């Protein structure tokens, strides 16, 4: 099948590529752009390992054709840490609170948690659990993931206050 042009913005960088129409967004990110942070877990839109942020929404990139994302603004785990390698507050919090073991689900968890905290900067435990219901972790039992997201919420609120004060 003939390839089609597609353009989007990924982690602030404009991207223009040619893709086969059947190329899924997760395969485009991982195989064509070498952004291998988002993972392929179940590939059936259940596990959430492929979660990215697309036009301000968390989505599962295994269930979107690349051409459906034409013109989109996308953020992946590669866009979370600062250019100098300083971890994002969520990454720091996941490390601090042992929010990961094998790490396979973590990029999806962090992208989902980031959007959740944009929508609700001070969530309860129940709101976090409802908010990450589309992300499966087979190691942690979720306890420390919830703790990490709560901790990140505090770090992010603190950073915002500091910014405002400056």
């Amino acid at each position: 099948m003939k390839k089609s042009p597609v353009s989007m913005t990924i982690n602030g960088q404009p991207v223009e590529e040619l893709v086969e129409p059947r190329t899924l967004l997760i395969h485009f990110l991982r195989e064509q752009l070498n952004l291998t942070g988002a993972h392929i877990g179940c590939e059936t839109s259940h596990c959430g390992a492929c979660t990215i942020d697309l036009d301000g929404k968390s989505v599962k990139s295994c269930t979107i054709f690349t051409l459906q994302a034409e013109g989109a603004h996308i953020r992946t785990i590669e866009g979370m840490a600062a250019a100098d390698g300083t971890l994002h507050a969520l990454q720091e919090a996941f490390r601090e609170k042992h929010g990961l073991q094998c790490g396979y689900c973590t990029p999806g968890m962090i992208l989902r948690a980031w959007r959740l905290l944009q929508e609700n900067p001070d969530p309860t435990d129940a709101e976090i659990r409802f908010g990450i219901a589309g992300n499966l972790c087979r190691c942690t039992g979720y306890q420390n993931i919830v703790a990490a997201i709560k901790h990140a919420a505090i770090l992010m609120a603190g950073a915002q206050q500091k910014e405002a004060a400056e």
Partner: protein
Amino acid sequence: MISGSFAFYRPHTIAEAVAMLATHGDAARLVAGGHSLIPMMKLRMAMPDHLIDVGGIADLKGIKRDGSDWLIGALTTQAELIADQALAAGLPVLRETALQIADPQVRNCGTLGGNIANGDPGNDMPAVMLCLNARFEVTGPGGKRSIPARGFYHGAYVTSLAQDEIVTAVRIAALPPGSAAAYEKLKRKVGDYATAAAAVALGLQDGKINFCSIALTNLAPTPLWAEAAGQALIGRAPGAESFALAGRLAEEITDPSSDARGPAAYRTKMGGVMVRRALARAALAAKT
């Protein structure tokens, strides 16, 4: 898992999309949120040669009032149904139902139009539409028509929608004063289809039920409108006895398959339980 090959189109108007469907016939499929179709394409259970993405058609979006009716664009996502404050206040059962569908990421993609038009008996919105006597606004090459939800579903994945037609919006009349609706769903886990689920709407006047509509999800090859179960409650007092009667009558019309969600007899019984619970909740809401 990689789907078969196809040509991809992104029309910007309903007319363009209808023309594409007319040109390509059975070899074409519409895709909106894609969370039913894309998994089917990966399994090669669906192999369209032409995929028409309606995601860029602005006329399919938005939640509006048309007189006292709600007019909800087919492209409205489950997340948008949940977030709409006017809808949450005026017809809260849609938000309540959408919150029980899948998970946040899937609700960001999955649309109301896809949920109702796909014809999957596991989808939750069709029973709500039967319960509320919704109408589906449809556009085809011959123009527009409006199909009552109660005549739309004929079998698993078989609906009244012609191959060259598009569902553009869902029209739902406001519930009369003194009435309320509820959706009760039994599922094994997040993201699962219902073991059994029930949508009910119920009105009260002078302490008696003056209006009642009941519909069921995933208990037959199509969603079911349990007309007799609803009718049986007219003139009765709301309460455990009435709700149990409706539950029993609703169970009688079910025809579920035995599957991983349980044996058929269990799923039928759970259908009755969902009816009772939904009626109790709707009656409480109708009173207040």
